[in-house]
Protein backbone atom coordinates (compact mmCIF):
# COMPACT_ATOMS: atom_id res chain seq x y z
CA UNK A 1 0.00 0.00 0.00
CA UNK A 2 2.86 2.33 0.81
CA UNK A 3 4.04 2.13 -2.80
CA UNK A 4 0.71 3.54 -3.94
CA UNK A 5 0.89 6.28 -1.33
CA UNK A 6 4.34 7.19 -2.57
CA UNK A 7 3.17 7.32 -6.17
CA UNK A 8 0.23 9.51 -5.14
CA UNK A 9 2.74 11.90 -3.58
CA UNK A 10 4.82 12.02 -6.75
CA UNK A 11 1.78 12.55 -8.96
CA UNK A 12 0.43 15.29 -6.69
CA UNK A 13 3.74 17.06 -7.08
CA UNK A 14 3.59 16.70 -10.83
CA UNK A 15 0.06 18.13 -10.85
CA UNK A 16 1.35 21.03 -8.77
CA UNK A 17 -1.98 22.45 -7.60
CA UNK A 18 -4.87 21.62 -5.29
CA UNK A 19 -7.27 19.02 -6.63
CA UNK A 20 -10.74 18.04 -5.44
CA UNK A 21 -11.67 14.41 -5.97
CA UNK A 22 -15.27 13.62 -5.20
CA UNK A 23 -16.07 10.18 -3.83
CA UNK A 24 -19.66 10.05 -4.95
CA UNK A 25 -20.68 7.04 -2.90
CA UNK A 26 -21.48 7.13 0.81
CA UNK A 27 -19.88 3.72 1.33
CA UNK A 28 -16.63 5.19 -0.04
CA UNK A 29 -16.90 8.08 2.40
CA UNK A 30 -17.24 5.67 5.29
CA UNK A 31 -14.44 3.42 4.04
CA UNK A 32 -12.09 6.38 3.67
CA UNK A 33 -12.69 7.50 7.23
CA UNK A 34 -12.70 4.06 8.79
CA UNK A 35 -9.33 3.18 7.32
CA UNK A 36 -7.80 6.60 8.00
CA UNK A 37 -6.62 6.85 4.41
CA UNK A 38 -7.40 10.54 4.13
CA UNK A 39 -4.44 11.12 6.40
CA UNK A 40 -2.16 9.34 3.96
CA UNK A 41 -2.94 11.80 1.16
CA UNK A 42 -0.81 14.86 0.34
CA UNK A 43 -2.24 18.17 1.57
CA UNK A 44 -3.09 19.24 -1.99
CA UNK A 45 -5.34 16.23 -2.63
CA UNK A 46 -8.80 16.75 -1.18
CA UNK A 47 -11.35 13.98 -0.98
CA UNK A 48 -14.79 15.55 -0.97
CA UNK A 49 -17.94 13.62 -0.26
CA UNK A 50 -20.77 13.57 -2.75
CA UNK A 51 -24.48 12.85 -2.99
CA UNK A 52 -24.17 9.06 -2.94
CA UNK A 53 -25.95 8.28 0.31
CA UNK A 54 -29.46 7.30 -0.79
CA UNK A 55 -31.15 8.13 2.48
CA UNK A 56 -29.44 11.52 2.64
CA UNK A 57 -30.60 12.75 -0.77
CA UNK A 58 -34.19 11.69 -0.12
CA UNK A 59 -36.42 14.72 0.33
CA UNK A 60 -38.14 15.42 3.62
CA UNK A 61 -41.55 15.27 1.92
CA UNK A 62 -40.91 11.60 1.14
CA UNK A 63 -40.35 10.84 4.83
CA UNK A 64 -43.51 12.80 5.62
CA UNK A 65 -45.47 10.72 3.08
CA UNK A 66 -44.10 7.48 4.58
CA UNK A 67 -45.11 8.68 8.05
CA UNK A 68 -48.62 9.52 6.84
CA UNK A 69 -48.86 5.98 5.43
CA UNK A 70 -47.71 4.22 8.59
CA UNK A 71 -50.36 6.12 10.57
CA UNK A 72 -53.06 4.37 8.57
CA UNK A 73 -54.57 1.43 10.40
CA UNK A 74 -54.65 -0.73 7.27
CA UNK A 75 -50.94 -0.22 6.41
CA UNK A 76 -47.66 -1.79 7.48
CA UNK A 77 -44.62 0.14 6.28
CA UNK A 78 -41.54 -1.97 5.51
CA UNK A 79 -38.20 -0.21 5.20
CA UNK A 80 -34.44 -0.57 5.26
CA UNK A 81 -33.22 0.34 8.74
CA UNK A 82 -31.41 3.50 7.68
CA UNK A 83 -34.64 5.40 7.08
CA UNK A 84 -36.03 4.79 10.56
CA UNK A 85 -34.43 7.71 12.33
CA UNK A 86 -34.41 10.24 9.49
CA UNK A 87 -36.30 13.32 10.65
CA UNK A 88 -39.37 14.30 8.66
CA UNK A 89 -41.04 17.67 9.16
CA UNK A 90 -42.41 16.67 12.56
CA UNK A 91 -41.62 13.08 13.33
CA UNK A 92 -39.64 10.03 12.23
CA UNK A 93 -40.62 6.47 11.44
CA UNK A 94 -38.96 5.41 14.66
CA UNK A 95 -41.07 7.81 16.70
CA UNK A 96 -44.17 6.62 14.93
CA UNK A 97 -43.33 3.01 15.69
CA UNK A 98 -42.81 3.89 19.34
CA UNK A 99 -46.26 5.49 19.25
CA UNK A 100 -47.79 2.26 17.96
CA UNK A 101 -47.58 2.46 14.17
CA UNK A 102 -46.64 -0.72 12.30
CA UNK A 103 -43.22 -0.11 10.81
CA UNK A 104 -40.99 -3.10 10.08
CA UNK A 105 -37.31 -3.03 9.28
CA UNK A 106 -36.41 -5.44 6.50
CA UNK A 107 -33.10 -6.53 5.10
CA UNK A 108 -34.35 -7.05 1.54
CA UNK A 109 -37.39 -6.03 -0.57
CA UNK A 110 -38.10 -9.76 -0.79
CA UNK A 111 -38.82 -9.75 2.95
CA UNK A 112 -41.51 -7.13 2.31
CA UNK A 113 -43.13 -9.41 -0.29
CA UNK A 114 -43.12 -12.23 2.27
CA UNK A 115 -44.68 -9.86 4.78
CA UNK A 116 -47.48 -9.17 2.29
CA UNK A 117 -48.06 -12.91 1.83
CA UNK A 118 -48.27 -13.41 5.57
CA UNK A 119 -50.52 -10.41 6.28
CA UNK A 120 -53.25 -10.52 3.68
CA UNK A 121 -55.53 -8.23 5.68
CA UNK A 122 -52.95 -5.42 5.61
CA UNK A 123 -51.41 -3.30 2.88
CA UNK A 124 -47.63 -3.61 2.91
CA UNK A 125 -45.80 -0.53 1.64
CA UNK A 126 -42.10 -0.95 0.97
CA UNK A 127 -40.05 2.26 0.96
CA UNK A 128 -38.11 2.03 -2.28
CA UNK A 129 -35.12 4.27 -1.78
CA UNK A 130 -31.69 3.81 -3.32
CA UNK A 131 -29.66 4.08 -6.50
CA UNK A 132 -29.10 1.76 -9.45
CA UNK A 133 -27.79 -0.94 -7.11
CA UNK A 134 -31.04 -1.18 -5.19
CA UNK A 135 -33.58 -0.39 -7.92
CA UNK A 136 -33.26 -3.82 -9.65
CA UNK A 137 -33.86 -5.61 -6.34
CA UNK A 138 -37.06 -3.60 -5.87
CA UNK A 139 -38.03 -4.24 -9.50
CA UNK A 140 -37.54 -7.97 -8.87
CA UNK A 141 -39.80 -7.80 -5.82
CA UNK A 142 -42.55 -6.04 -7.80
CA UNK A 143 -42.33 -8.64 -10.56
CA UNK A 144 -42.48 -11.48 -8.07
CA UNK A 145 -45.45 -9.87 -6.27
CA UNK A 146 -47.14 -9.53 -9.66
CA UNK A 147 -46.46 -13.18 -10.54
CA UNK A 148 -47.82 -14.26 -7.17
CA UNK A 149 -50.96 -12.20 -7.79
CA UNK A 150 -50.50 -10.19 -4.59
CA UNK A 151 -52.90 -7.29 -4.20
CA UNK A 152 -51.56 -5.94 -0.92
CA UNK A 153 -47.94 -5.16 -1.83
CA UNK A 154 -46.98 -1.60 -2.77
CA UNK A 155 -43.80 0.37 -3.26
CA UNK A 156 -43.37 4.06 -2.48
CA UNK A 157 -40.62 4.55 -5.03
CA UNK A 158 -38.05 7.33 -4.87
CA UNK A 159 -35.15 5.67 -6.64
CA UNK A 160 -32.48 7.90 -8.05
CA UNK A 161 -29.84 7.47 -10.70
CA UNK A 162 -26.31 8.77 -10.62
CA UNK A 163 -25.04 10.14 -13.93
CA UNK A 164 -27.22 13.23 -14.22
CA UNK A 165 -26.72 14.10 -10.56
CA UNK A 166 -22.97 14.02 -11.13
CA UNK A 167 -23.47 16.22 -14.16
CA UNK A 168 -25.54 18.67 -12.12
CA UNK A 169 -22.66 19.04 -9.68
CA UNK A 170 -20.35 19.98 -12.53
CA UNK A 171 -22.64 22.93 -13.28
CA UNK A 172 -22.53 24.04 -9.64
CA UNK A 173 -20.47 27.22 -9.34
CA UNK A 174 -19.75 26.65 -5.66
CA UNK A 175 -17.90 23.39 -6.00
CA UNK A 176 -14.99 22.61 -8.28
CA UNK A 177 -14.49 18.94 -9.02
CA UNK A 178 -11.33 17.68 -10.73
CA UNK A 179 -12.21 13.98 -10.80
CA UNK A 180 -14.82 11.48 -9.70
CA UNK A 181 -14.28 8.27 -7.76
CA UNK A 182 -17.38 6.65 -9.20
CA UNK A 183 -19.66 4.46 -7.08
CA UNK A 184 -18.53 0.83 -7.30
CA UNK A 185 -21.75 -1.04 -6.74
CA UNK A 186 -23.92 1.27 -8.83
CA UNK A 187 -21.51 0.53 -11.67
CA UNK A 188 -21.70 -3.24 -11.10
CA UNK A 189 -25.26 -2.86 -12.38
CA UNK A 190 -24.99 -0.06 -14.93
CA UNK A 191 -21.55 -0.74 -16.42
CA UNK A 192 -18.75 1.81 -16.58
CA UNK A 193 -19.65 3.09 -20.03
CA UNK A 194 -22.34 5.19 -18.35
CA UNK A 195 -19.75 7.79 -17.28
CA UNK A 196 -18.23 8.31 -20.70
CA UNK A 197 -20.27 11.45 -21.43
CA UNK A 198 -18.80 13.10 -18.33
CA UNK A 199 -15.29 12.64 -19.68
CA UNK A 200 -16.20 13.68 -23.19
CA UNK A 201 -18.44 16.64 -22.43
CA UNK A 202 -16.74 18.03 -19.32
CA UNK A 203 -13.18 16.67 -19.56
CA UNK A 204 -13.42 15.27 -16.01
CA UNK A 205 -11.70 11.93 -15.33
CA UNK A 206 -13.80 9.14 -13.82
CA UNK A 207 -12.41 6.08 -12.02
CA UNK A 208 -14.70 3.38 -10.63
CA UNK A 209 -13.28 2.32 -7.29
CA UNK A 210 -13.76 -0.61 -4.93
CA UNK A 211 -14.28 -0.44 -1.19
CA UNK A 212 -11.08 -1.73 0.38
CA UNK A 213 -8.67 1.03 1.44
CA UNK A 214 -6.24 -0.20 -1.21
CA UNK A 215 -8.93 0.20 -3.88
CA UNK A 216 -9.59 3.79 -2.89
CA UNK A 217 -5.92 4.70 -2.86
CA UNK A 218 -5.41 3.05 -6.22
CA UNK A 219 -8.42 4.93 -7.65
CA UNK A 220 -6.94 8.18 -6.30
CA UNK A 221 -3.63 7.36 -7.95
CA UNK A 222 -5.35 6.63 -11.26
CA UNK A 223 -7.26 9.93 -11.14
CA UNK A 224 -4.11 11.90 -10.35
CA UNK A 225 -2.27 10.19 -13.19
CA UNK A 226 -5.02 11.24 -15.58
CA UNK A 227 -4.97 14.81 -14.27
CA UNK A 228 -1.16 14.95 -14.54
CA UNK A 229 -1.31 13.70 -18.14
CA UNK A 230 -4.21 15.99 -19.04
CA UNK A 231 -6.46 13.00 -19.81
CA UNK A 232 -10.14 12.47 -19.02
CA UNK A 233 -11.11 8.83 -19.39
CA UNK A 234 -13.34 6.28 -17.70
CA UNK A 235 -11.13 3.76 -15.93
CA UNK A 236 -12.08 0.89 -13.68
CA UNK A 237 -10.03 0.15 -10.61
CA UNK A 238 -12.74 -2.19 -9.24
CA UNK A 239 -12.37 -4.58 -12.15
CA UNK A 240 -13.11 -7.63 -10.02
CA UNK A 241 -16.76 -6.53 -9.94
CA UNK A 242 -17.22 -3.95 -12.69
CA UNK A 243 -17.11 -4.14 -16.46
CA UNK A 244 -18.20 -1.84 -19.23
CA UNK A 245 -21.60 -3.33 -19.78
CA UNK A 246 -22.81 -4.09 -16.26
CA UNK A 247 -25.39 -6.62 -15.13
CA UNK A 248 -27.67 -6.92 -18.14
CA UNK A 249 -30.28 -9.07 -16.39
CA UNK A 250 -30.61 -6.40 -13.69
CA UNK A 251 -30.83 -3.61 -16.27
CA UNK A 252 -33.61 -5.45 -18.08
CA UNK A 253 -35.60 -5.96 -14.93
CA UNK A 254 -35.17 -2.31 -13.99
CA UNK A 255 -36.37 -1.21 -17.43
CA UNK A 256 -39.31 -3.60 -17.23
CA UNK A 257 -40.65 -2.01 -14.04
CA UNK A 258 -39.31 1.55 -13.98
CA UNK A 259 -39.02 4.48 -16.33
CA UNK A 260 -36.90 7.59 -16.10
CA UNK A 261 -38.37 10.68 -14.43
CA UNK A 262 -37.20 13.97 -13.00
CA UNK A 263 -36.33 13.77 -9.32
CA UNK A 264 -35.86 16.17 -6.43
CA UNK A 265 -32.55 15.74 -4.58
CA UNK A 266 -32.05 17.22 -1.17
CA UNK A 267 -29.72 20.19 -1.50
CA UNK A 268 -29.46 19.99 -5.26
CA UNK A 269 -33.09 20.41 -6.23
CA UNK A 270 -34.81 18.99 -9.26
CA UNK A 271 -32.55 17.12 -11.67
CA UNK A 272 -34.05 16.07 -15.00
CA UNK A 273 -33.92 12.33 -15.76
CA UNK A 274 -32.33 11.43 -12.42
CA UNK A 275 -35.11 9.35 -10.92
CA UNK A 276 -37.10 6.20 -11.56
CA UNK A 277 -40.86 5.94 -11.42
CA UNK A 278 -42.98 2.79 -11.66
CA UNK A 279 -44.38 2.16 -15.16
CA UNK A 280 -48.12 2.19 -15.83
CA UNK A 281 -47.99 -1.55 -16.37
CA UNK A 282 -47.20 -2.01 -12.67
CA UNK A 283 -49.32 0.91 -11.38
CA UNK A 284 -51.24 -1.50 -9.14
CA UNK A 285 -48.03 -1.80 -7.06
CA UNK A 286 -47.26 1.91 -7.03
CA UNK A 287 -48.28 3.32 -3.64
CA UNK A 288 -48.76 6.81 -5.06
CA UNK A 289 -51.81 6.17 -7.28
CA UNK A 290 -52.94 2.96 -5.54
CA UNK A 291 -53.09 4.43 -2.03
CA UNK A 292 -53.54 8.08 -2.96
CA UNK A 293 -50.24 9.26 -1.49
CA UNK A 294 -49.76 13.02 -1.56
CA UNK A 295 -46.45 14.83 -1.21
CA UNK A 296 -46.95 17.97 0.87
CA UNK A 297 -44.48 20.85 1.13
CA UNK A 298 -41.99 19.83 3.82
CA UNK A 299 -40.18 21.65 6.57
CA UNK A 300 -36.65 20.31 7.02
CA UNK A 301 -34.78 21.65 10.06
CA UNK A 302 -33.93 25.25 9.16
CA UNK A 303 -30.34 25.13 10.44
CA UNK A 304 -29.45 21.80 8.82
CA UNK A 305 -26.99 22.13 5.95
CA UNK A 306 -27.19 18.56 4.61
CA UNK A 307 -27.85 20.00 1.15
CA UNK A 308 -24.53 21.85 1.11
CA UNK A 309 -22.75 18.80 2.55
CA UNK A 310 -24.19 16.58 -0.18
CA UNK A 311 -22.93 18.91 -2.91
CA UNK A 312 -19.46 18.98 -1.39
CA UNK A 313 -19.77 22.76 -0.82
CA UNK A 314 -19.07 22.53 2.91
CA UNK A 315 -17.79 19.82 5.23
CA UNK A 316 -19.97 19.02 8.24
CA UNK A 317 -17.48 20.91 10.41
CA UNK A 318 -18.79 24.11 8.86
CA UNK A 319 -22.35 23.38 9.99
CA UNK A 320 -23.02 25.29 13.22
CA UNK A 321 -25.12 22.44 14.61
CA UNK A 322 -22.54 19.70 14.00
CA UNK A 323 -21.64 17.81 17.16
CA UNK A 324 -23.50 20.35 19.32
CA UNK A 325 -27.24 20.32 18.74
CA UNK A 326 -26.94 17.65 16.03
CA UNK A 327 -25.45 14.29 16.99
CA UNK A 328 -26.18 10.69 15.95
CA UNK A 329 -28.39 10.26 19.01
CA UNK A 330 -30.30 13.46 18.25
CA UNK A 331 -29.91 14.00 14.49
CA UNK A 332 -31.28 17.08 12.72
CA UNK A 333 -30.69 15.85 9.19
CA UNK A 334 -30.30 12.55 7.35
CA UNK A 335 -26.54 13.05 6.85
CA UNK A 336 -26.12 12.49 10.60
CA UNK A 337 -28.42 9.45 10.66
CA UNK A 338 -27.43 7.24 7.80
CA UNK A 339 -24.62 4.72 8.15
CA UNK A 340 -23.35 6.22 4.89
CA UNK A 341 -23.92 9.85 5.83
CA UNK A 342 -21.05 12.31 5.69
CA UNK A 343 -21.95 14.03 8.97
CA UNK A 344 -22.12 10.62 10.68
CA UNK A 345 -18.68 9.76 9.27
CA UNK A 346 -17.16 13.01 10.51
CA UNK A 347 -18.77 12.53 13.90
CA UNK A 348 -17.69 8.95 14.29
CA UNK A 349 -14.13 9.23 13.06
CA UNK A 350 -13.24 12.51 14.63
CA UNK A 351 -12.55 16.07 13.62
CA UNK A 352 -8.80 15.67 13.49
CA UNK A 353 -8.99 13.13 10.70
CA UNK A 354 -11.72 15.07 8.92
CA UNK A 355 -9.60 18.19 8.72
CA UNK A 356 -6.84 16.31 6.86
Amino acid at each position, binding site marked *: *MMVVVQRIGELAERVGRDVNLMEVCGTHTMAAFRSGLRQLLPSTVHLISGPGCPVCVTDTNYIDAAIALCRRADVIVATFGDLMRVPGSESSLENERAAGAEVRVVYSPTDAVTLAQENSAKKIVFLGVGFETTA*PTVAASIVSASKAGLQNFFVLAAHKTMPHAMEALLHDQQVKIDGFICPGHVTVITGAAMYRFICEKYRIPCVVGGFEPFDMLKATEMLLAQIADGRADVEVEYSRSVNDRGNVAAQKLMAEVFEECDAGWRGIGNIPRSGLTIRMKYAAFDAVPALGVRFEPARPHPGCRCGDVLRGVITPLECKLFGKACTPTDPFGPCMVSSEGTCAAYFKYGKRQAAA
Partner: protein
Amino acid sequence: MCLAVPAKYVELQGTAATISVECALREVDVSLIEEPRLGDFVLVHAGFAIHKWDQSEVDEWETIRRGLEVAAGGGGG
Protein backbone atom coordinates in the same frame (compact mmCIF):
# COMPACT_ATOMS: atom_id res chain seq x y z
CA MET B 1 -26.58 -2.84 2.76
CA CYS B 2 -23.91 -3.98 0.39
CA LEU B 3 -21.45 -6.71 1.28
CA ALA B 4 -18.36 -6.07 -0.79
CA VAL B 5 -17.00 -9.48 0.11
CA PRO B 6 -17.39 -12.72 -1.82
CA ALA B 7 -20.25 -14.92 -0.71
CA LYS B 8 -20.49 -18.54 -1.77
CA TYR B 9 -23.68 -20.40 -2.75
CA VAL B 10 -24.10 -23.46 -0.59
CA GLU B 11 -27.66 -24.21 -1.61
CA LEU B 12 -29.74 -23.29 -4.65
CA GLN B 13 -33.46 -23.70 -5.24
CA GLY B 14 -34.97 -21.77 -8.13
CA THR B 15 -34.26 -18.10 -7.46
CA ALA B 16 -33.64 -18.70 -3.76
CA ALA B 17 -30.16 -19.49 -2.52
CA THR B 18 -28.32 -19.86 0.73
CA ILE B 19 -24.91 -18.24 0.83
CA SER B 20 -22.05 -18.54 3.20
CA VAL B 21 -20.42 -15.21 3.89
CA GLU B 22 -17.75 -14.60 6.50
CA CYS B 23 -18.80 -17.79 8.29
CA ALA B 24 -22.52 -16.94 8.43
CA LEU B 25 -25.37 -18.36 6.37
CA ARG B 26 -27.89 -16.07 4.69
CA GLU B 27 -30.77 -16.33 2.26
CA VAL B 28 -30.41 -14.45 -1.02
CA ASP B 29 -32.34 -14.08 -4.24
CA VAL B 30 -30.45 -14.97 -7.42
CA SER B 31 -32.87 -13.65 -10.03
CA LEU B 32 -30.35 -11.02 -11.17
CA ILE B 33 -27.67 -13.61 -11.93
CA GLU B 34 -27.46 -15.54 -15.16
CA GLU B 35 -26.93 -19.27 -14.64
CA PRO B 36 -26.15 -19.43 -10.94
CA ARG B 37 -24.25 -22.56 -9.91
CA LEU B 38 -23.46 -24.12 -6.57
CA GLY B 39 -20.04 -23.07 -5.35
CA ASP B 40 -20.07 -19.75 -7.27
CA PHE B 41 -18.94 -16.61 -5.48
CA VAL B 42 -21.22 -13.59 -5.65
CA LEU B 43 -21.50 -10.02 -4.47
CA VAL B 44 -24.65 -9.40 -2.42
CA HIS B 45 -26.75 -6.26 -2.04
CA ALA B 46 -30.06 -5.94 -0.17
CA GLY B 47 -30.64 -9.67 -0.18
CA PHE B 48 -29.85 -10.13 -3.88
CA ALA B 49 -26.78 -11.51 -5.58
CA ILE B 50 -25.80 -8.76 -8.03
CA HIS B 51 -22.56 -10.02 -9.55
CA LYS B 52 -20.77 -13.30 -10.03
CA TRP B 53 -17.07 -13.25 -9.16
CA ASP B 54 -14.81 -15.65 -10.97
CA GLN B 55 -11.95 -17.35 -9.15
CA SER B 56 -9.33 -14.82 -10.28
CA GLU B 57 -11.50 -12.00 -8.92
CA VAL B 58 -11.83 -13.76 -5.57
CA ASP B 59 -8.06 -14.27 -5.53
CA GLU B 60 -7.52 -10.57 -6.21
CA TRP B 61 -9.79 -9.65 -3.33
CA GLU B 62 -7.91 -12.00 -1.03
CA THR B 63 -4.58 -10.50 -2.05
CA ILE B 64 -5.86 -7.00 -1.34
CA ARG B 65 -7.23 -8.08 2.02
CA ARG B 66 -3.97 -9.80 2.95
CA GLY B 67 -1.96 -6.80 1.81
CA LEU B 68 -4.03 -4.62 4.06
CA GLU B 69 -3.50 -6.89 7.02
CA VAL B 70 0.25 -6.94 6.47
CA ALA B 71 0.36 -3.16 6.12
CA ALA B 72 -1.78 -2.59 9.19
CA GLY B 73 0.11 -5.16 11.28
CA GLY B 74 3.53 -3.97 10.17
CA GLY B 75 2.83 -0.27 10.53
CA GLY B 76 2.18 -0.50 14.27
CA GLY B 77 4.02 2.71 15.25
